């Protein structure tokens, strides 16, 4: 993607808008096609890495009462006797047919194991993501608007705090302070067990459980992003059209939020897109600290159980999601800045 110099079609008559749409569609199609070899490569790499973990599933589920023949049967039932390339092709062709295999640990189909866990992760990921963006917009705008004043210093200090705090540490400390010591919030899980609530109270109970993991996951990214937004906002505020706006008497708040923020957000989109992988990783850690029954926790458990099919599917799914989110970021980038050209 390249930034185009001011061209004649910048304002875009109807015809040229059509041209942009076609270009965008071609660009998206090409990016999707590029993603396919990338995914194949990732899956091969992951497959090899996971099978290279010392102590395969047969060793993990080994039972002292099992004789050699029984162990061989166990291996055979896991499909571990074929050479690795054959195993990969079997797995990949099953995958393409929509068959993700069965979990070695529980015997359930991987699709149903993941289907149980997936919504929880999406909920945590999206809520933290949205919270993070909101806070970033507020904090970044405030500290740019009050550059060099007390508000700016306070926000900068908070940002340094957030950037320097490892997610798991913040999670543990908050868990111990707000749940164990103060008893304000539930320590872990998604719902209080052993009670039946009315639907409204059940929702409230669930949100109380969501609050801490969501905030913990959002803090690190908010801190980093608000610094970026502050810098780009300060750049925008110094530009001529802002002075014009002020001279015309646009109210300061409206000027900042409607005119400046929209342009200041553009460079941030790239940073946010780069961080998607990190948020997914951070979600895994947050889930593990707060016993949030999502994919991240499933991943760590499955890694310890050498549950190959679950691990592979979870990794591939996360890679697909990161790629999709990156594509969305690209599209958003062009919506926000019509000067972007697809090439």
């Amino acid at each position, binding site marked *: 993607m390249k930034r185009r110099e001011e061209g004649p079609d910048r304002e875009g008559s109807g015809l040229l808008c059509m041209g942009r749409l076609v270009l965008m569609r071609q660009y998206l199609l090409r990016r999707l096609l590029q993603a396919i070899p*990338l995914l194949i490569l990732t899956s091969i790499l992951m497959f090899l890495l996971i099978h290279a973990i010392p102590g395969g599933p047969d060793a993990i589920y080994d039972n002292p009462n099992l004789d050699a023949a029984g162990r061989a049967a166990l291996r055979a039932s896991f499909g571990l006797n074929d050479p690795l390339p054959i195993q990969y092709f079997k797995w990949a062709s099953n995958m393409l047919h929509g068959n993700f295999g069965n979990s070695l640990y529980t015997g359930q189909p991987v699709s149903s194991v993941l289907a149980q866990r997936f919504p929880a992760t999406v909920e945590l990921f999206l809520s933290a993501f949205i919270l993070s963006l909101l806070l970033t917009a507020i904090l970044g705008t405030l500290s740019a608007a009050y550059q060099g004043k007390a508000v700016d210093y306070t926000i900068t200090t908070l940002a340094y705090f957030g950037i*320097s705090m*490892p997610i798991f540490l913040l999670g*543990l400390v908050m868990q111990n302070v707000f749940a164990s010591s103060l008893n304000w919030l539930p320590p872990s899980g998604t719902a209080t067990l052993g009670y039946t609530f009315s639907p409204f109270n059940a929702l409230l109970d669930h949100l109380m459980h969501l609050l801490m993991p969501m905030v913990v996951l959002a803090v690190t990214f908010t801190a980093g992003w608000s610094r970026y937004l502050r810098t780009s906002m300060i750049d925008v505020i110094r530009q001529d059209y802002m002075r014009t706006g002020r001279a015309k008497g646009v109210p300061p708040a409206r000027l900042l939020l409607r005119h400046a923020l929209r342009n200041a957000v553009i460079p941030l989109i790239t940073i946010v897109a780069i961080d998607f*992988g990190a948020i*997914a990783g951070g979600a895994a850690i947050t889930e593990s600290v707060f016993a949030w029954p999502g994919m991240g926790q499933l991943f760590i458990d499955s890694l310890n159980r050498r549950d190959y099919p679950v*691990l592979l599917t979870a*990794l591939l799914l*996360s*890679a697909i999601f990161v790629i999709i989110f990156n594509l969305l970021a690209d599209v958003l980038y062009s919506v926000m800045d019509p000067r972007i050209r697809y090439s």
Partner: protein
Amino acid sequence: MDASKQAHSSQEDFEIPAELTPALQARRRSQKRIIFDRFMRNKVATAGALFLLFLILCCLFGPLIPGHTTPDAVGVTAPFAGSSLADPFGTDNLGRDTLARAMVGGRISLLVALSSMLISIVLGIIIGAFAGYYGGWLDNILMRLTDTILTIPLYLLLFVLSATFANGTPISVIFLIAIFGWTKAARLVRGEFLALKEREFVQAAATIGARDLRMMFYHILPNAAGPIIVNATLLIGSNIILESVLSFFGFGVSIPVASWGSMINQGRDYFDAAPRLLLIPGILIFLTVLSCNLVGDGLRDALDPQMTER
């Protein structure tokens, strides 16, 4: 650091103009001195640098202090002994000396963070330099590789890799972290090279027949030293976090060797009895990472050529 020295000394070789009065000559400072002065004017960054220095000294020489030499010895005193004059941090659930463990754990954490930073910066410089200097298909391949690594959830990948390759020794953890730390440095160096290779001094060097490697690492690289040093400082902080995450989940340096991450993991179960078992290593990690970030940002301001010299 060598690279930056070269860049500065080459600029100092200019002859001092004759009209420079002795009074002005006396006030003349070397570029290193200017940068140092500018950095020292930033109080917060200086405090961060001093804290890091203090921490490194503590971790290096602290475990030699009599009475704190046995970090792994169980039952030195009663478990959960509170802080006393002899034992300011008390003991943990097994009666191990927490101060000694914090210092030895700091050694591991700092060792892992610094060495993996060095490896990934060298990797990043080489990859970024070749991509930026040659461009074309090489650039394409190297940058796609960088993008790919940036899109995979790093923690998940590290967990798999450490389960596969790491055997719990610090060296294996160093390499594990280094393999994925080079991406940002590579992008940065590539960007600098793309901009710098169009400059006149590069053309001048080309005219006198400088070979590619000499051009890349002798002429261009020193001019990109500033951003690289800043990136390296910030990388130390993020490596300390990575190491602690790995150790916390049991994928890092194997117990009973102390590292700040594994100390947190052991302390979390005893928060009610002795919150300091979690808080001491936690605060150490936090302060170290904070100092690295502050020093990094201070260096960025001090090294920025756009800043007017006062």
